[in-house]
């Protein structure tokens, strides 16, 4: 595990290039995501700083998984920006899922701005041990 910690260099927030235009003009950002696979499931971890549980939306339509996290812009209302190194904005990212996922049992939880999305594999996708006679 410590090998993984050394590999990744922190990068600035990635802006999302939207395919369709939105009615409200605003920048969206792509949350940094880690995806790991265990024997029984696929797990996604997404950094969504500033996103509370009630502002998080995880949608699954056909095989497209979409995560949208909105920040509370009201918190910035009476502030004036003096010096900025990062911009703020909502988060959005989509992933194409394979039919290997049991879409009914997907679970999501968000703690301290990190979303953990667990996608259990469908029965037939679990690796089967082949015995050698």
């Amino acid at each position, binding site marked *: 595990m410590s090998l993984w910690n050394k590999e990744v260099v922190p990068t600035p927030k990635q802006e999302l290039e939207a395919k369709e235009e939105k009615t409200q003009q605003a920048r969206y950002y792509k949350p940094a995501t*880690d995806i790991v696979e265990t024997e029984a499931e696929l797990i996604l971890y997404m950094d969504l*700083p500033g996103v509370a549980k009630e502002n998080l939306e995880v949608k699954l339509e056909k095989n497209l998984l979409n995560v949208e996290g909105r920040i509370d812009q009201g918190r910035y*209302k009476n502030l004036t*920006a003096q010096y*900025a190194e990062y911009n703020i904005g909502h988060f959005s990212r989509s992933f194409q899922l394979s039919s290997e996922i049991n879409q009914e049992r997907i679970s999501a939880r968000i703690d301290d*701005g990190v979303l953990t999305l667990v996608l259990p594999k469908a029965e037939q996708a679990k690796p089967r041990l082949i015995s050698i006679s």
Partner: protein
Amino acid sequence: MFGFTSAFDTLWDIQRAMENAMRNDYFGPSTASSGYPPINIFNYGENTLVTVELPGFKKEDVKLEVKGKTLAIKGKREIEFPEKASLHRRERSAYSFDRTLRLAHEVDEKKIKAELKDGVLAVLLPPAEEHKPKTIHIN
């Protein structure tokens, strides 16, 4: 902790104001300059508000120290995966950081407030009494 929502202010206005602030040469010729993680500095009335995005950090993982006109923020985050997990994509980084900021004014240390909520650290730094702007009466 701050403000209240208005239907008329758009996120776009805030984002544009932030972009202008990014071109601001706040630190000038001092030791501090941009580093990691990125930090924002706001004014809230006469107070200074420092924000940092620290997703996955808990209160115990962050240390804040104020001394005179400097604010030091340090922290460390570990990223853990389940045992026997195979990696598909890796974009988040586990890291430790230690940044020192020079503030525009001395701080009233008794009135500092800090909050770490949903992965965003916000530190409110009220100015020390002798540094508050004083009204000058014109006779």
